[in-house]
């Protein structure tokens, strides 16, 4: 008992092992993955950064840097800046108009469709459920051609133009709304509706006082999502366009870059990127604000996580 047992000698980890451990970092962030993630972020953001950079070019080239000008292609150039060129201005307005209308039409429709699909069972519901996913899987070009043919041959009372463009946008952005809202509906479950009915609320009161307030974050996400999708859209807008007066920003950018592009096009695109980012930013902030009561720190975790809610 008195003999002291000799301490066993344990070899220190080899250099190779240490390098391996540094990369994998088993007790922290895996550094290898961190590096790959940053490379991915850099690669995907470089083109956007370059495009934005050239909108501040002092010269007329979109490929050669000729010095910095903050406002030439946005405000100053009398004929070809975003402000100076009426075609660019018009494209911007048309894009905003389409995106705004699409957002306001597709979201309520999508919410209603999601409510129906999530709460009804039967053949009709599963059929619409399937059809609803079509716009998500159909190539946009095919969607565009089909819509074009529909408006030219079938719905001849609607001429190509803003109305047709809005309808086209609504058709394909509806699916996104349904996916978002239905996800939230499923994660909320039926318990709150049952509780409301149990407490004497009519189905309409249940919808108004319980379901819609709980869906608000999803509804808001949908609004912003649709706005961002619609303002970015090129194919459908182009197919249903009535000519240059229906041109949206993407169409304008496309036709200009095929001719002699000026940095004003980059400026226009930059304005668009800013608007899309703003939309997503607002959506994120509002979503955080609306679900603040559901989020809780500490070991019990947030109810948002518990309910598997849709998070931006």
């Amino acid at each position, binding site marked *: 008992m008195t003999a002291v047992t000799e301490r066993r000698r344990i070899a220190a980890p080899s250099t190779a092992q240490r390098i391996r451990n540094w990369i994998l970092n088993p007790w922290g962030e895996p550094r290898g993955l961190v590096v790959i993630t940053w490379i991915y972020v850099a690669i995907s953001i470089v083109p956007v950064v370059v495009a934005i950079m050239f909108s501040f070019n002092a010269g007329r080239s979109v490929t050669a840097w000729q010095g910095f000008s903050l406002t030439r292609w946005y405000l100053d150039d009398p004929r070809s800046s975003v402000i100076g060129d009426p075609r660019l201005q018009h494209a911007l307005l048309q894009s905003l108009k389409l995106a705004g209308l699409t957002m306001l039409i597709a979201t309520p429709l999508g919410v209603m469709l999601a409510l129906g699909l999530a709460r009804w069972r039967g053949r009709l519901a599963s059929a619409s459920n399937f059809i609803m996913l079509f716009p998500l899987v159909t190539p946009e070009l095919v969607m565009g051609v089909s819509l074009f043919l529909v408006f030219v041959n079938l719905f001849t009372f609607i001429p190509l133009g803003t109305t047709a463009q809005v309808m086209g946008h609504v058709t394909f952005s509806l699916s996104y709304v349904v996916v978002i809202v239905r996800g939230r509906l499923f994660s909320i479950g039926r*318990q709150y509706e049952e509780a409301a009915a149990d*407490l004497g609320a009519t189905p309409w009161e249940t919808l108004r006082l319980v379901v819609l307030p709980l869906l608000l974050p999803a509804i808001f996400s949908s609004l912003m999502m649709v706005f961002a999708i619609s303002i970015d859209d090129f194919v459908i807008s182009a197919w249903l366009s009535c000519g240059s007066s229906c041109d949206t920003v993407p169409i304008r950018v496309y036709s200009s870059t095929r001719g002699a592009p000026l940095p004003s096009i980059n400026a226009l695109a930059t304005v668009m990127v800013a608007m899309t980012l703003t939309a997503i930013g607002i959506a994120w902030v509002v979503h955080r604000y609306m679900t603040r009561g559901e989020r809780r720190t500490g070991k019990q975790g947030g109810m948002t996580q518990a309910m598997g809610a849709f998070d931006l």
Partner: protein
Amino acid sequence: MSGGEIELIDLNKHFGPHRAVDNINLQIPGGEFFSLLGSSGCGKTTTLRMIAGFERPTSGQIVLDGADMTETPPHKRHVNTVFQSYALFPHLNVFDNVAFGLRRQKVEPDQVKRRVNEALELVQLTSFEKRKPAQMSGGQQQRVALARALVLKPAVLLLDEPLGALDARLRKQLQVELKSLQQQVGITFVYVTHDQEEALTMSDRIAVMSNGRIEQVAPPEEIYEAPATVFVADFLGVSNLMDAVASGSDATGRCKVKVGGFDCYAGRGSADATGTTKVTIRPERVRLEPKGTGGENRIPGTVQRWVYLGNSVQLIVGLATGAKIQALMQNTGEEIPYREGAEVAVHLPATALRILEDTGAPLASAED
């Protein structure tokens, strides 16, 4: 307080070929604390949901205070539910949650305020009005759910495993509170649980369910002391189930049974039973006697395990019939002479041996 009498008549609920609730008949008088006890999937929750109106019965009737409400939608029924997950509206604070039902009834605002405060007082949550459900503990949320249902003064309160999500200590405490609350407000409670202890401590009467059918309806003591069927005995943890063949009553009114080839008499349960069934005896009623002791209801056996429990000693005895039974012997300070391996005569007194009805329900203990 009167009212709150529920009657379920030939109630059925089928999901496709599955009979979730299979021809249930129940009568629950007003003011009773009634429990539906059973393992998961036995149909207890479906029964409760039918009373609440969330499920539509395949056939049968639900009668509340003499009025058929089988076809009444949930929002028009004078019953309220405390959900297992509480289902408190996360976007409303405690006050608005409790006031929700009152406002649907178009109660005057000052009345709403008074009644909500009363209800919150009843569940001891007076200073929590402005909190959101997510800012409260499970036990507090549970009380809000109770207040939200009770504030409407329902004829019947339905509770779907309301304590299921709480830890053991809180559950014990709330069991007591729930029971006294029920006596205080005097309305009918229909309580669904899978926890036999919960059902035994709180209920006036218990219905033990299995496979969508009711096995036995009786007060807790009777359920525990005199289980009618094999399933009830097994579910309540009354072990010592032994296969037996019954052959009707003898001259003294006891049932003659053959337990694995040994003739015995069962003095409790249905004396007229015949055919294959099971008999049971409580571990504390089993007597161990020296090997070879004669007399009726004695079966030879061998002590297989000897477990010291402090106030008593538990002995697992392998009977000559092949069955294993438990015997519980009080620790009176005297030496218990039967150690592992000892051969004994197991005396199953006829006054304690109960014959059970076998309804064929799968037993919980058979799973392990």
